[in-house]
C-alpha cells in the first residue's frame, strides 16, 4: 500500500495560526472588555487553563470544516472558531442538528438550545447517517477517561482482578467492573466516520497509559504494525489531535506515523510535566524520544481579541469557563491564589 493513499486533513500549522490570529479583530472595545472583566472578576490580561484549551482547540479546526461536537469544551471551541478566525466552520450535534448558531449555550447534545438557527434538526439516525456516514463530517471533538499512545479512547470502564469487564450476570464475582464510565454515546461513530479526532482531556499519568483498558473509540491503530484501523475495516479517518491541559499531541498517518507525537507545550508548562504525565515514551515528530531539557515549540498564547470573544460572546455567564482542572485546584490550594497565565504578544 502506498503511504500517500491517505490524504491528510490539513490542520493549521503554528505559523498559520499565528498569522490568522494576528489579523483578527473582534470589534469589542477595550473599555467594554475591561468593564466585563471587572463585573465578572476575571483579570483582562490573564487566562485560565479552560480558556487556553478552548482557544488553542479553536485555532486548529481546518478552515470551513464541519465538526461533530459534544457539550462542554467542544461547544466553546467551535462557537469561538466561528466568531473569530473560522467563520465558515459548521457544527453538527448528535440529536440531529446541522449548522446551528447558538444564542444560549446548550448543556446537552440534545438541548434544544443547540438547534437554534440550524439548517436542519432531524433525528439521531440522520446525524450519524445522513450527515456523517454519508461523508459530511470532517472532524469530531471527543473527551474520554483514558487515552493511549495510538489515540484510542476508553469511555467504558476499568477493572482489576478479581473483578473483570463483565457486569454481575456474567462476572462470576457478583459485582461489575471496578469503575464504569459514560459509555460510547456518539464517541465511537464520530471517531470511526470522520477524517480526524480532536480529543480534549485532562492529562494525568494514570489516564494516559500505553494501552487503554477498553477501546471504546479507535484511534489510528489498536497497536503497532498490522493493527491499524484500516486492518480492521474502518473506511476513513486516522488523523488525531490531543489537546490536554499541558500540551498538544498529533499523529501523521499520511506519513505512516500512527502514534501520538508532541506538537507543542502550553505556555508556563514544563516539558518535564508533560513527560511525567504519559506512560509511554513521548517523541517529537521526527521520532526522537524527548528529554525534559529538550527545546520544543510552545502553544501560541491566546490573544486579547480571542479572549474578548470567548468571554463576552461565547460564554458570557461562564457556564463552562468557570470550571477548573484538577491541576488548577491543586495549585490554588498550594499557593493560595488561582492559576493564571499572562497573555503574551
Amino acid at each position, binding site marked *: *500500500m502506498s503511504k*500517500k*493513499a491517505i*490524504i491528510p486533513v490539513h490542520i493549521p500549522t503554528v505559523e498559520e495560526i499565528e498569522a490568522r490570529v494576528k489579523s483578527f479583530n473582534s470589534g469589542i472595545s477595550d473599555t467594554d472588555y475591561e468593564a466585563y472583566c471587572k463585573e465578572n472578576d476575571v483579570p483582562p490580561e490573564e487566562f485560565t487553563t479552560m480558556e487556553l484549551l478552548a482557544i488553542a482547540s479553536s485555532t486548529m479546526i481546518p478552515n470551513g470544516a464541519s465538526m461533530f461536537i*459534544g*457539550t*462542554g469544551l467542544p461547544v466553546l471551541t467551535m462557537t469561538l472558531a466561528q466568531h473569530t478566525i473560522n467563520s465558515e466552520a459548521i457544527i453538527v450535534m*448528535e*440529536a440531529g*442538528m446541522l449548522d446551528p448558531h447558538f*444564542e*444560549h449555550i446548550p*448543556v*446537552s447534545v*440534545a*438541548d*434544544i*438550545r443547540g438547534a437554534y438557527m440550524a439548517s436542519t*434538526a432531524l*433525528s*439521531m*439516525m440522520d446525524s*450519524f*447517517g445522513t450527515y456523517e*456516514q*454519508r*461523508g*459530511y*463530517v470532517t472532524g469530531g471533538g471527543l473527551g474520554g477517561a483514558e487515552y493511549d499512545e495510538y489515540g484510542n479512547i476508553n469511555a*467504558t470502564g476499568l477493572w482489576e482482578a478479581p473483578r473483570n*469487564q*463483565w*457486569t*454481575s450476570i*456474567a462476572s462470576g464475582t457478583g*459485582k*461489575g467492573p471496578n469503575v*464504569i*464510565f*459514560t*459509555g*460510547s454515546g*456518539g464517541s*465511537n461513530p464520530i471517531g*470511526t*466516520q470522520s477524517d480526524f479526532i480532536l480529543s480534549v482531556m485532562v492529562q494525568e499519568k494514570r489516564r494516559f497509559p500505553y494501552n487503554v483498558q*477498553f*477501546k*471504546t473509540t*479507535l484511534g489510528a491503530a489498536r497497536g503497532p504494525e498490522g493493527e491499524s484501523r*484500516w486492518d*480492521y*475495516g*474502518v*473506511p476513513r*479517518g*486516522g488523523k488525531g489531535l490531543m489537546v490536554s491541559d499541558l500540551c498538544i499531541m498529533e499523529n501523521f498517518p499520511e506519513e505512516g506515523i500512527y502514534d501520538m507525537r508532541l506538537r507543542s507545550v502550553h505556555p508556563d508548562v514544563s516539558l518535564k510535566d508533560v513527560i511525567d504525565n504519559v506512560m509511554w515514551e513521548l517523541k517529537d515528530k521526527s521520532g526522537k524520544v524527548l528529554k525534559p531539557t529538550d527545546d520544543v515549540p510552545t502553544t501560541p498564547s491566546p490573544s486579547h481579541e480571542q479572549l474578548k470573544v470567548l468571554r463576552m460572546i461565547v460564554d458570557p*455567564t461562564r*457556564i463552562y469557563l*468557570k470550571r477548573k482542572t484538577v491541576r488548577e485546584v491543586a495549585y490554588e490550594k498550594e499557593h493560595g491564589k488561582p492559576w493564571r497565565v499572562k497573555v503574551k504578544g
Partner: protein
Amino acid sequence: MAEASKIMSIKEAVSKFVKPHRAWVVGGFGYTRTNASIPREVIRQNIPNLYLQTNAGATPVMMMAGAGQLDWIEMTYIGLETIQPVSYEIRKGLEDGDISAYMLFSNYSWALRTQAGRFGMQFATGMTDIGSDLIEYDIFGKAGLRGKNEKGMWVHPDIPPARQVIIDDPFDGWGLRPHQYDPENKWSQGDVPDTTWNKTAAEEDGIFYEKLRKQANKYTGKAAVKAVLYPPAIPYLATTHVQRCGNKGTARIEGLLVPDVEQSLSAKYLVIATEKVVPEEELRFRPSENQIPMIHVDAIVETPWGGYPTNVTYMYDYDWMWWKFYIQANRAADTPDGRKALADYWHDIVGKDEWDFLQNKVGTDKFEFGKIKAKYECPSGATGFARLYELIADTKYGYKPDQYRPI
C-alpha cells in the same frame, strides 16, 4: 364494529404493558422530551427487574435505577452531560452488581438497530463500532440469553441471536462514500471525485479509495472490504412522550426528534404519552408534519407536564434546579443503605398519581442521608404548578432563554 378506544389511564397502561425482564425502550434524550410520566407510574406500581433500552436517554434509566427497579440495561451512554459526568446511581448499580446486565452499543449502532426495527428489515449495515472493543462486549451472549432453546424457539424473544455479524462486503465496497469515480473510464470520462467532504483514504487525485478499504484482514480471515450487520431492535414496549396525539393515535413531535421515531416504530407495543389528546383532524390537516402513524399505537395516555423535569420543546423548559438538587442526592448510591434511602426518595416524590406529583411534589424535593443533605431550591421558592408555570417556553426559542442555570 365500533373501534375500542386506545385512550386509557396511565395506571392502566403501565399495569397492562410494563413487564419484568421484557425490553422496554423509553423515549427522549437527556434533558429533552423524556418520557418521565410512565417511569413515575412504574415507580408507583413498583414493578421490579426492569429491562430498559435507550439511545443515550439516561434520564428514565436514572429514575428506575434510583428507585431500585432495574436489572438489565441495553444502552449507549449513561452520562448526564454537563450536570454529572456519569449518572451516579446507574454507575454504582452496575459496579456493585444490583444492575446485573449492561449491553453496550454506540449511539449509531443502536440507531441502526432501531432503523432496521422500524422498517421490518432483517438487519441494517454500517461501519460503526468496527475495530473497537464494543464489538466483543456481548454480555447477553455470555449470559446465555441469545439463540434458540431446546424447543427451537428464541431463548429471549427480545434479544437477537448475535450482537452483530461482520462479513466481507458482497458489493465490494461499492456503496461506501466517497464513491469511486474513474475519469479514464469510458462511461465517466473526466469525472471528478465524489462531492462528499470526507477525503481520507483517497489517492492524491482523490478518486481511488479501494487500497485502504481492501487492506482489512480481520474478522473474516480475508483481505476485503468489511460490512457490519446489525440485527433489528424489536422491543416489547416503547413509551414515547409527544406534544400532541390524536384520539386514534396519530402523533406529532415538535423540536428535536432524537431517537424517538425509529424506536417507537420498532416495538411490539407502543404507548404514547402526550401533553394533550386532540381530535385527529387537528393533526390531519398537515399529515406531513406527523411522525407516528396511528396504526402503530396501542395506547394513548394524556399526561400534561409528563416530560418534567426535562424540556418539552415549545411548551416548557427543563428544570435545571431539579438536576442541581438530584446530583447531590444521588451520591448516596455509594452504599446499599444509601441506595435504599434513594429508592425511598423516589417512591415518595412521585406522589400517589400524576396530579398529586404535579400539584404537591414538584419543587419540594429534599433528601438526607448521612452527610448528604440536598434540597430543591429555585430562585422564586415556588412549588407545584406555580413552579411549572415558571418553566413555560418562549415560543420563538422553544425554551426559556433567561432560565437561571448555575453549574
